C-alpha cells in the first residue's frame, strides 16, 4: 500500500512538472515576434515550443539549455558559416525537428558538430538535413535519445572529417531511418548499450559505414551499409544482434562487409552480404551464430581466423563467391553445417536435399593466396583448377575438420 502511494505521488509529480503543460509557442522569422532563434530561446521556458519559419539563420552557436521543442516550418536553414558548432543541447527533453543545418565549423582540436548533445537525456533529433558538417550528430553521455529521419551528407577527405552519427557513452538510444553519406564513419558507437539501430542507410562514407566497440546488447535491424571505404567494423562487444541488414560493395584492401573482432555471444541473422571483398571477417569471435544469411558474389564470403571458436555457421546460402571460406590456421573449432554452397559437386542419392558427402569450403588455392597474395593472378587457370580438384579428393593441406557435413543441394529461400 505504501509503495502504491509512493508511485501515485511520483506519477502526479511528473504530471505536474511535465514540460508540455502550460506550454507556450513562439514564432521566429520575418514578420514574426522574434527574428532570431536565440532571442526566442531567451524568452521561453521548459516545455515551450519554438517554431522557426523558412529562411536563412546565421546565429553562430545556438545553445539550448531548456527543455524546448525547436521546430522548423518549411526546412529553415541554420548556417554555421564554416565557423561554429550550430546547435548544442545541454538539457533533457529537447526536440529538434525539420531544419537544414549547414556549413559547421571544422577544427583539429574540438569535435565541432552540426548538433551536439552533451549530458542530456530524452533528446529527439528528427527530420533534419545536415549538409557539409564536420561531425553530424554527436551524442555524448546521453541516454534515451532518438535520432530519426535525418539526412547527413559531408564532402571532405578522411583527414578533416568527422563521423555522421557519433555516440559516446549512452544507453537506450534509437537511431532510425537516417541516411549518412560522405562522413568518416557513418554511425559510430563507443560504450553505448541497449540501443537500436534500424533502417538506416550508410553509404559512401570514407571509413566505416558502421563502427562500434565496447557497445553491448545493441540491435541492428534492416540497415544498409554500401560502398563504404572499409565496410563495417564491430569490435570488443557482446550480445550484438544483427538482423536483416545489407552489406553491399565494400571493396578494397582491408575492406570488409562486416569485420568482427572479439565479439562474443552474438547473433547474425538473415543479412545479405553482396559483392564485398570480404563478406565477414571474424577474428577472436566466440559463440556467435551466423544463420540464414546470403553471401553472394563476394571475393571471400567469410574469413574465419584460427582465433575463432565455438561459432555456428548454419543455413546460409553461399553463391557466386570467389572463395567461400578462408582461414589462416589448420585447426578449426567452428561448425559449418546445413549451408548451401554453389560450388558443391556432391550427390544426393536418398533425395533428402542433403548432399551425401561433406563439402570442404576452403580451397587449396585460397590457402595459397593466403600465403602469397600475388598468386591471385593465377586464379581460374587450368593448373589451379587441377590443384583444387586434387585437393578436394585427397585433402592434405586444407583444415581437416573444416567441412559442412550436411551441405544442402538447393539454395534456401531467404
Amino acid at each position, binding site marked *: 500500500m505504501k509503495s502504491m502511494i509512493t508511485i501515485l505521488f511520483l506519477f502526479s509529480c511528473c504530471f505536474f512538472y511535465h514540460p508540455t503543460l502550460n506550454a507556450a509557442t513562439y514564432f521566429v522569422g520575418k514578420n514574426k515576434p522574434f527574428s532570431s532563434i536565440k532571442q526566442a530561446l531567451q524568452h521561453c521556458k521548459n516545455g515551450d515550443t519554438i517554431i522557426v519559419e523558412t529562411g536563412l539563420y546565421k546565429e553562430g552557436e545556438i545553445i539550448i539549455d531548456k527543455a524546448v521543442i525547436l521546430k522548423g516550418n518549411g526546412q529553415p536553414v541554420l548556417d554555421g558559416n564554416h565557423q561554429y558548432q550550430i546547435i548544442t543541447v545541454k538539457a533533457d527533453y529537447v526536440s529538434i525537428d525539420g531544419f537544414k543545418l549547414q556549413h559547421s565549423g571544422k577544427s583539429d582540436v574540438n569535435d565541432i558538430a552540426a548538433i551536439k548533445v552533451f549530458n542530456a537525456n530524452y533528446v529527439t533529433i528528427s527530420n533534419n538535413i545536415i549538409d557539409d558538417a564536420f561531425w553530424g550528430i554527436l551524442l555524448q553521455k546521453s541516454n534515451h535519445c532518438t535520432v530519426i529521419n535525418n539526412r547527413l551528407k559531408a564532402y571532405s577527405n578522411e583527414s578533416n572529417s568527422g563521423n555522421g552519427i557519433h555516440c559516446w557513452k549512452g544507453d537506450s538510444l534509437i537511431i532510425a531511418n537516417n541516411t549518412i553519406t560522405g562522413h568518416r564513419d557513418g554511425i559510430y558507437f563507443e560504450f553505448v548499450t541497449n540501443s537500436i539501430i534500424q533502417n538506416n542507410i550508410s553509404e559512401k562514407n570514407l571509413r566505416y559505414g558502421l563502427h562500434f566497440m565496447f557497445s553491448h546488447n545493441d540491435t541492428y535491424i534492416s540497415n544498409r551499409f554500401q560502398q563504404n571505404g572499409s565496410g563495417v567494423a564491430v569490435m570488443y562487444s557482446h550480445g550484438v544482434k544483427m538482423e536483416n541488414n545489407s552489406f553491399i560493395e565494400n571493396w578494397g*584492401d582491408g575492406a570488409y562487409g562486416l569485420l568482427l573482432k572479439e565479439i562474443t555471444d552474438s547473433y547474425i541473422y538473415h543479412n545479405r552480404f553482396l559483392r564485398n571483398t570480404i563478406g565477414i571477417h571474424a577474428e577472436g569471435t566466440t559463440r556467435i551464430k551466423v544463420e540464414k544469411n546470403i553471401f553472394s558474389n563476394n571475393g571471400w564470403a567469410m574469413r574465419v581466423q584460427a582465433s575463432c571458436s565455438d561459432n555456428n555457421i548454419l543455413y546460409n546460402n553461399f553463391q557466386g563467391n570467389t572463395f567461400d571460406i578462408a582461414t589462416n590456421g589448420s585447426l578449426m573449432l567452428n561448425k559449418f553445417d546445413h549451408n548451401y554452397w554453389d560450388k558443391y559437386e556432391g550427390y544426393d542419392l536418398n533425395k533428402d536435399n542433403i548432399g551425401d558427402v561433406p563439402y570442404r569450403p576452403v580451397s587449396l588455392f585460397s590457402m595459397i593466396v593466403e600465403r602469397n*597474395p600475388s*598468386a591471385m*593472378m593465377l586464379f*581460374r587457370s*587450368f593448373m589451379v583448377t587441377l590443384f583444387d580438384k586434387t585437393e578436394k579428393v585427397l585433402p592434405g593441406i586444407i583444415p581437416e575438420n573444416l567441412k559442412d557435413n550436411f551441405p544442402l543441394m538447393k539454395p534456401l529461400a531467404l
Partner: protein
Amino acid sequence: MKKIFKYVTADILRNKIVLAYTLLLMVISFSLFMLQDDASKGMLSLLNITLLIVPLTSIIFSAIYVYNSAEFIELLVSQPLKRKSIWLSLFYGLAAALSIAFFVGAGIPIIIYQPTSTGIIMIITGIVLSVIFVAIALLAAVLTRDKAKGIGITIMIWLFFALIFDGLILFILFQFEDYPLDKFMIFTSAFNPVDLCRILILLQMDVSALMGYTGAIFKDFFGSHVGSVVAGFVLLLWVIIPLWLSTRKFQKKDL
C-alpha cells in the same frame, strides 16, 4: 587479296571440322547454361572452355589446315599473286572462320543467357585467343616442313601457355616469396596471351576478390584506361609479331 580471302574462308567454313567445332561449342555452352540453375556457374565452366579448348582447337586446326593446303598454296603461288597476300589471306581466312565458329558456338549462348559485361569480355577474349593461336600456328607451320613435327610443336606451344607457364609462375612466386612480385606478375602476364585474357575475365568475374589484398594492383592497372589499352595492345602484338615473322619466312620459303 580480297578474292583469295573469300575463297579460303569459304573453303574453311565448308570444312567439317570447323562445323563440328561450332556444334561442339554450341552443345557444351547450351547444356552448361541449361543444366546449371545459376547462369554465372555456367560462365565458370565456359571460362575453362575459352581458355583451353579454343586455343587448342585454333592452333591444331590451323596448323593441319596449312599443311593440308600445301598444294593449294602452291597453286596460288604459281598464279600472278603476291606471296604476302596469299599468306595473309590464309591467316585472315582461318582467323575469321574460327572466330565465327566461336561466336556462333559460344558467343550466341552467352548473349542469350548471360548478356553481362562478363559475357561480352568472354566473347571478345575467345575471339582474340582464336586469332592469336591461328597466328602462332601459322608461324609453327611455316617453320617446320614436317607435318607430324609441326603438329607436335603446336601441341607443345599450347601446353606451355595453358599449363607450364602458370606452373613456372607459381614456382617463382614461392621461390621469391619475400619479394614484392606484383609488378612482376603484371609484367609476366604479357608473355602469355591465355593468362592475359584470363585476367581480363577475372576482372569482371572476381572483381570483389581482386579488390582485396595486393590484387588491387591488378585492378588498378588493368581496370584503368591505360591498363586496358596496354592489355589490348599486348594482345595485338601477340597477333602481329607471329604473323609478321611467319609472313617474312613464307616470302622466302621454297615450296
